[in-house]
């Protein structure tokens, strides 16, 4: 038994000896492929891999993806990034879903001077004081304000409430920025309620919301809890509307939510397969995605994974080199790059400035209803 195991280990070890190649650009991907955030991480990885398949070479050099899992765990995230930089000597890194993981990995990359492009880590702290961390997504204050703007300006609601996941940095941040923005525009926040990730009974909060009589409730939840909230609200006969954020952007929302999600809105990136006027990049992405995954519609996570690669490709081409430092400098000057999720410009804080979209469930279908410019 012991001999057999030793032999097996030896074989496996030999298999891992990688060949070093000068003419290869190595792109590390660290994302949550297992653990609690695996759902988002895997979709993003698929998006990045699609972009790689379509653009296998940059500057005439072959691009090699090195994929490591961060298990949705902070310690692992820091390990994974260290491994990419020290062992695999990658030129740049793409990742990750989950801001806390990005922060753990970002610290390592910052010290080593390797640029990282975040996919959907939306916490403002991720790029704060970081020279090497960028992202293709917008940040929580932007999105919170976007939801408020849409509710106040486009829908004309004057009374709003928030229902926030206290244990989730994303949710807490969005809730605060929504309230600030909504009040600034002249609206009234009639209730601000909380729950904890993993809760399954929201009737107490919903009853309080019904009593407070808001026009709209901002629900920056993850899909697991968000779907239950909507279902229980319907059962309690709530008449106010709900608006969520991009974490509620799930291809299966209608199949899972059924009746209860009808009329639900959420902010998202300016991409959805149901968009009427898609830009060229988005059209190409959707077509290629459907070829490879005929039974699965793409969502924003796939689009962001794809866009991160496009952003990197653009920077390397403009820098004319795959040297980490030069990639970093080029990334900083990205302007009006056509990506799946609209035109991307990297601002001074390394966040992507881009349009924000609103999706509504109408007649059992995700419908892209328009683009919002948030009033911050």
């Amino acid at each position, binding site marked *: 038994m012991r001999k057999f195991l030793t032999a097996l280990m030896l074989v496996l070890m030999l298999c891992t000896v990688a060949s070093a190649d000068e003419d290869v650009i190595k792109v590390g991907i660290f994302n949550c492929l297992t653990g609690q955030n695996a759902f988002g991480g895997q979709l993003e990885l698929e998006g990045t891999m699609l972009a790689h398949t379509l653009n296998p070479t940059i500057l005439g050099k072959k691009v090699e993806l090195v994929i490591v899992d961060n298990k949705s765990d902070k310690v692992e995230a820091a390990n994974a990034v260290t491994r990419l930089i020290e062992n695999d000597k990658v030129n740049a890194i793409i990742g990750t879903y989950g801001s*806390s993981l990005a922060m753990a990995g970002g610290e390592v990359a910052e010290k080593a001077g390797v640029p990282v492009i975040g996919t959907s880590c939306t916490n403002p702290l991720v790029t704060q004081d970081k020279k090497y961390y960028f992202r293709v997504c917008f940040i929580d204050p932007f999105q919170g304000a976007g939801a408020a703007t849409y509710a106040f300006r486009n829908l004309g609601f004057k009374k709003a409430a928030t229902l926030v996941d206290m*244990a989730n940095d994303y949710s807490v941040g969005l809730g605060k920025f929504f309230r600030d923005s909504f009040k600034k525009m002249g609206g009234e926040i009639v209730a601000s309620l909380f729950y*904890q990730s993993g809760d399954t009974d929201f009737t107490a909060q919903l009853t309080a919301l019904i009593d407070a009589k808001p026009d709209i409730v901002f629900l920056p939840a993850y899909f697991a809890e968000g779907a239950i909230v909507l279902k229980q609200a319907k059962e309690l006969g709530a008449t106010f509307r709900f608006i969520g954020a991009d974490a509620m952007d799930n291809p299966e929302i209608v199949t899972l939510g059924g009746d209860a999600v009808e009329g639900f809105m959420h902010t998202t990136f300016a991409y959805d397969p149901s968009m009427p006027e898609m830009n060229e990049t988005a059209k190409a992405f959707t077509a290629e995605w459907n070829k490879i995954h005929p039974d699965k519609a793409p969502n924003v996570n796939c689009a962001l994974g794809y866009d991160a690669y496009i952003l990197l490709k653009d920077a390397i081409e403009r820098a004319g080199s795959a040297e980490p430092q030069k990639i970093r400098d080029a990334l900083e000057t990205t302007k009006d790059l056509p990506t799946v999720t609209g035109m991307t410009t990297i601002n001074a804080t390394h966040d992507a400035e881009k349009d924000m979209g609103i999706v509504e469930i109408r007649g059992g279908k995700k419908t892209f209803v328009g683009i919002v410019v948030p009033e911050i």
Partner: protein
Amino acid sequence: MQRIRNLILTIIAVVLFAFFLDKAPELLNGYWQRILNLIAINAILALSLNLIYGITGMFSLGHAGFMAIGAYVSALLVLSPAQKNAMWILEDIYPWLLNVNAPFIASIIIAGIVAAFFGLIVALPVLRLGGDYLGIATLGFAEIIRILITNTARLTNGSLGLKGIPAYTTLFMSWGCLGVVLLCMVCMLRSNFGGVLRAVRDDEVAAKMMGINTFKVKVIAFTLGCFGGGLGGALMGNLITTIDPRMFMITQTYNILMIIVVGGLGSVTGSIIGSVLVTTMLEWLRFVENPITIGSINIPGIPGMRMVIFSLLLIIVIIFRREGIMGMREFSWDIFFPKAKPKPKHEKSNHESVLEVEDIVLRFGGLSAIDGLNFNIRHGQIVGLIGPNGAGKTSAFNVISGFYKPTSGTIKFLGKSIGGLSPDEVCKAGMSRTFQNIRLFGHETVLQNVMTGARIRQKYSWWMSLMPFVFTDVLREDSAVKAQAMNLLEQLGLSEFAEEKASSLPYGAQRRLEIARALATRPKLLLLDEPAAGMNPQESDELMKFIRRLRDEFDLTILLIEHDMKVVMNVCDYIQVLDQGIHIAHGTPEEIKANPRVIEAYLGHENTDKETDQIIERHYAKKEGQK
């Protein structure tokens, strides 16, 4: 000689390792340096949990909570005011917190102390629970800590967490901390106080009877373990440079638990080996998630594959070595050298004793276990307490030795009332006992069992055992106790077993060992609960001689419960008889044999009286013959 040799070898090993750490930045890339750092931190965490669970036997699932406290305390102390200002974007930070600052080393020590403080607060109510209940209670506590951190945003920045913590955890820092923790822990576990910890794990009841305040010992071990948890958490935070409440979920505790179970519950060496294995394996196995090409076969990478393989390896370890890699054993340089045996010294003692029991009543609800027990024992007497099954003999023992509080009545020991004292206090007053069903510290050596009994006579405090080279009393007292224990073993004919595990001894020897352990507390009164149980006639003959010898050599007064009439009638100077909780008779063996109430209650019918006489006569005849 042996000690000096081992010390030199240890110093050489430490110097070599320090040299390696010094050269590590050149030898290893950043990735392996990080792993090396994690090994040290995991080892600190594993050692601290092992102290609580493996060594003292308290099943605690709260380690992640104490890590969280440590990590936050240290982070809040080392972050600069400017960083704090920038990070609290949702709610404002408490103004006083903004300027609180401490150097890194101070911050991790404070982190440990704060965690230990919380540990103490938890321990006081919770350690009254045992086993699974303790596990649930500590699990709940860790969850409370996490939720508190999430909800006190002005203090902790809530679910956003903290970032930009300076990466102070260098290799020398983490391994230095591990070195200090390891040194203190090994010293403590090698001292007699360490033996006490293991004794509490193996048999809490017996430990109490050895004069040990087991609750206090458990609180100390738990608090020390929490200090380690806080320290490990602080180092972890300063290595990862960012922390948030979700980092400290129950899975964090499971990871540490896994390390100590794989390494061996109760083994310091095991915890170190476990943390090396678990930390490196998890990282090293990453390659199984990459696409693999063997010859012409292409296996695509599967995320999560390494966890599958890792779990399989764990299962294999547990199947083939249930007790973990090291079990309860420890590394010692001695394995490279043949053994030498220490020589014991001699010591003597003398004192006097009296027990007065007056009108003892013990009721459990409506049931009277004892209803009015009165007797005196004079110095040097051997007194028997007899009665049929269920007469209340063992209950009387439990009342006298402090396990039960009498419903009414007084017990005076050496002129002082001991009613209401706990077993350990009774023991300190000078009384010791054995148990009907032998209660030894089974995993410990015979010698350690006896040494545990001597702990109450040692003067050094538990904290001195952390630094025995500073507080040399520890070494001196321990070696004195060891010599005394060896002496006792020799007197009781157990010295050949000294280094063997107590549970591996033959039955008769276990009985004698229990007595030896009781004697190590230097009692004035010894209570023996059925010493002859399970012995054949020849063995019980020896036992009778042994009990008399005990009285003479150790200047003891003895109270014994026994069913073996031959033993009772021969060895006792005086006999007390109980029947269904009622004190029906007392007197010399002759009087008792003639007492009709005793005969009726205990022996059932009159013939037995004659039978007993015959047995005794035959016995004396044999004895005469021997002379």
